[in-house]
C-alpha cells in the first residue's frame, strides 16, 4: 500500500515519464500512454465546463508561498474508495499526477518533491529536449529517493 504510480504529462498531453511504485501493479506501456492522454483531455474539458471556477489555491504541500493565489483549474483531485488521484499542473502546463492509496496523507508533499526534482534534473538538464520523454538517471534517482524504493 501507499503510493501507486506517477505520471508526468507534458503541455501537449503526451506522457513524458511514468513510474509504477507498487510492484504488484502492472501497466502495459500503451495503456499508460492512453491513460495519460485521456486524463489530459478530461482535464481540458473539465476546465472548459467550469469556466467560472475561481477557487484560489491557499497553498501547496504545506508551504503557503508556493503557488498560493493561483487559480485552480481542471481536475485537481479524484477520490474513490480504492485510490486517490492528485494532479498538479505547473505554470507551463506540465501535469504531475500521483495515484495513491486513499489513506495516504503525504501526497501534496510528494507532488511538491516531484516538481522540485523535475525543476532540477529535467529543466536544468542541458540534454533534455523539450517535450520529450525524460531519460535522466539523476531524475530517476531522486524519484527513487522520494518514494524510498
Amino acid at each position, binding site marked *: 500500500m501507499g503510493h501507486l504510480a506517477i505520471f508526468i504529462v507534458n503541455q501537449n498531453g503526451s506522457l513524458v515519464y511514468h513510474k509504477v511504485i507498487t510492484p504488484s501493479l502492472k501497466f502495459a506501456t500503451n495503456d499508460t500512454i492512453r491513460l495519460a492522454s485521456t486524463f489530459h483531455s478530461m482535464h481540458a474539458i473539465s476546465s472548459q465546463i467550469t469556466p467560472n471556477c475561481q477557487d484560489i489555491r491557499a497553498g501547496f504541500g504545506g508551504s503557503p508561498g508556493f503557488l498560493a493565489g493561483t487559480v485552480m483549474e481542471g481536475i485537481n483531485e479524484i477520490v474513490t474508495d480504492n485510490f486517490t488521484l492528485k494532479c498538479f499542473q505547473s505554470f507551463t502546463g506540465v501535469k504531475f499526477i500521483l495515484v495513491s492509496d486513499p489513506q495516504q496523507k503525504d501526497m501534496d508533499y510528494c507532488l511538491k518533491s516531484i516538481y522540485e526534482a523535475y*525543476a*532540477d534534473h529535467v529543466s536544468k*538538464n*542541458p*540534454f533534455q529536449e523539450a517535450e520529450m520523454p*525524460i531519460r535522466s538517471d539523476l531524475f530517476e*534517482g531522486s524519484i527513487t529517493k522520494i518514494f524510498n524504493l
Partner: protein
Amino acid sequence: MKKGSAMNATLADFAFERTLKPRQEVSLSSFSFLFSEIVQQLMKSEKAASYHAHSGALTDPMLQSAGSGTCHLNNDLEHQLYQLGIPIGEKLLELLFYREKGGQGGACSSGKRETKLVSMLHLINGSVFKALFGRPADGLEQSIEDEDEYRILDRSPITNKFANLGKNSQLGQTNCAAFIAGLIEGMLCSAKLYAKVTAHLYGDEEAGAGGDAQATAEGEGAETPAGAGAGATSTTIYVIKFAKEVAVRERAGQ
C-alpha cells in the same frame, strides 16, 4: 573603499565598486538554466551545420586538435564548450588580480601575479576554484609518466550537476566540464604558461592508471558530502599538459 569616500563618490569609484568588488554568490539555478540554454544552442547550431554540409567545416578544428595528439575530445559539443571557456578564463584571471588590488579578500592573498608554474596551479586549484565555485578543487597532482602534465580533480563540476544523458543516447559520453577545462586553459595561457587542458570523465579512463588510482585512494578518504550517486558519474579530471617551452623555461628558472 573607505566609508567617508562614499559621500562624494565619482563615476570611477562607482565603476570600481560595480565591477571589481567581489560579487555576491549567483544562484545555482540561474547559472544552470543559462548554461543549459548555451549547450542546447550549441547542439542546435551543430545539428544545423551538419545538415547543411555533411563533411562540415565545423568538424575541422576538432580533427586538427585530435591530430596534434594533445587533446582527445569526444565530440564537437565539448570542443565548442571548451572554446567558450577560454576567453572567459583569460578575463577572469585579470579580474581576480584587479579585485585583489581592491583589497576585498580576493583570489590570491599576496596580491602579486604568479609566474611560476606550480604556484599558478595551486592558485587555480585553491583560490580560483573557491572564487568560482565556492570550494577548492578536490586534488592537484603531477602525472607520473610525464612531468609536464598535471591533473586537477573535480568531484562535482558545477556544469555536470544537472546534466545527464540517460541510458540510451546517441551522443555517448559528453562532459560539459569541457567548459571549465577551457576556462583553466584561458587562465594559464593569459599567464603565459601555455598549456592544453582537457576534461575527462573519471571512470571511463583507461590510460594513466597509476595516477588515477592514486586519485581514488585520496578521494575515498575524503568522502564528499554531495550525493554519492550523482558524484560518481560526473567526477572529472582536468588534464593540463604544458607546452615544451614552458617546461624548459621553468627548469631554467629553478
